[in-house]
């Protein structure tokens, strides 16, 4: 694992007894001694601290806001200072190159992109925008769960007044932080950008709070899946459009047909047409009967026997909070919620019901 990168928290992970695995070119903690199940439940019950420093952080000058808007089907020009918005880079075929967060800090824009895509994203940004500034010396922590506010406010009282998708700069003992009220677990919580030289110290200060436990990538995955959130490279990629992925909610009216800034992003023809007419397939939630998980790659069929597959599971596993299996799959859009389909697991077709997502309700602080 010599060519793998390490985050600024590597020593802390090892000290805490984490099991380290390769992930997106980094050595990352997949779980701590608590284990995936208890880490998941702890995050939903109290507060979990996640190292997400492998993700890319990038500054984009404010005068590039229109150029950035031309890369995403999202209203970036309409983003207010102190607010954050979910977005995705699209390609000319209307597929998704990556999903990201765009933050308006008042004097600059700041993006957070996926680790596996960050080099390509930065090249993409630099090809279309000027003054793009990657921030390789900053780390990112996520503090998630119902006690996240209490734990973070014990260090920085000002964070309590942030609302969901709100963002501000903070000073912590001389370190410049950018904190947003957001996350990837469906829980209330924060993402905290911190200079890497101070990340170990900040993580230890947060872990000193009795409500906070370190949480690995394993529970991060089950938490986001229960919350119906997409994982890039699995549930969304260059072959899936945002409309098929059920992400139309992130495409504001102003960028749609008839809007003041209609289209003008890569793949607009397909994406606008799908918004008008509906897509042929849709990312759907599946609730398998029984306890057997339907994992990524499981083929979905319309009936208990015969026929060709109608879709494939893109993410699937066991939801500790819902105490049962759950999966996402792209299925023909005319199949309604409540319909029964069949996943082929180890040669056996097991029934599953199409259900609305999230599997576990969100509890954002709006």
């Amino acid at each position, binding site marked *: 694992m010599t060519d793998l990168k390490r985050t600024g928290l590597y020593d802390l992970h090892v000290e805490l007894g984490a099991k380290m695995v390769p992930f997106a070119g980094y050595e990352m903690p997949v779980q701590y001694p608590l*284990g995936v199940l208890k880490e998941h439940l702890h995050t939903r019950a109290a507060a979990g601290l996640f190292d997400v420093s492998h993700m890319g952080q990038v500054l984009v000058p404010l005068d590039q806001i229109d150029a950035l808007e031309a890369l995403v089907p999202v209203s970036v020009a309409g983003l207010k200072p102190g607010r954050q918005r979910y977005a995705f880079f699209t390609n000319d075929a209307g597929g998704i190159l990556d999903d990201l967060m765009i933050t308006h800090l008042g004097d600059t824009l700041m993006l957070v992109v996926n680790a596996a895509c960050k080099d390509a994203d930065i090249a993409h940004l630099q090809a279309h925008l000027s003054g793009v500034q990657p921030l390789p010396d900053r780390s990112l922590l996520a503090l998630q769960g119902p006690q996240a506010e209490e734990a973070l406010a014990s260090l920085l009282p000002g964070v309590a007044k942030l609302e969901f998708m709100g963002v501000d700069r903070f000073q912590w003992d001389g370190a410049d932080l950018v904190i947003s009220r957001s996350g990837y677990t469906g829980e209330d919580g924060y993402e905290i950008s911190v200079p890497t030289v101070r990340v170990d110290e900040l993580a230890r200060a947060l872990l000193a709070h009795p409500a906070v436990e370190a949480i690995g990538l394993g529970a991060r995955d089950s938490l986001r899946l229960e919350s119906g959130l997409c994982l890039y490279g699995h549930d969304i990629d260059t072959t899936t459009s945002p409309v098929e992925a059920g992400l139309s909610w992130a495409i504001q009216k102003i960028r749609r047909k008839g809007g003041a800034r209609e289209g003008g992003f890569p793949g607009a023809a397909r994406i606008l047409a799908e918004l008008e007419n509906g897509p042929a397939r849709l990312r759907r939630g599946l609730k398998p009967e029984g306890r057997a*998980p339907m994992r990524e790659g499981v083929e979905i069929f319309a009936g208990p026997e015969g026929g060709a597959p109608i879709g494939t599971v893109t993410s699937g596993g066991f939801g500790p909070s819902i105490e049962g299996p759950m999966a996402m799959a792209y299925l023909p859009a005319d199949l309604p919620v409540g319909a029964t389909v069949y996943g082929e697991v180890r040669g056996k077709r097991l029934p599953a019901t199409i259900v609305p997502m999230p599997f576990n309700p969100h509890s954002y602080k709006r």
Partner: protein
Amino acid sequence: MKFTEEHEWLRVEGDLVVVGITEHASEQLGDVVFVELPETETKVATGDEVCVIESVKAASDILAPVDGEIVEVNEALSDNPGLVNEDPLGGAWFFKMKVEDMEQLDAFMDEDAYKEFIG
């Protein structure tokens, strides 16, 4: 008790062999969330896939350690798969086999050899 290289334990109970997985295996698997048990009165040969264990991470198989017939399965695991993590050497046995040739067990490791095997 005997141990296999597939991290199963075998305990002789009269003319039956009780099969489970070791503590080491249960730790490596992580939290178990689903167990698929075999049918009873099934004849199996060494190496046949007999059970499936799904943990929060992945699915893995339990192989028949010897030739024989499955005569009893631990239904408690269907309702409470977490037993595999809580009590792997006791309450979380998977199945009992009728084995004609008990000498098949002689080839397996004893506890000391298994401890050395897992390092």
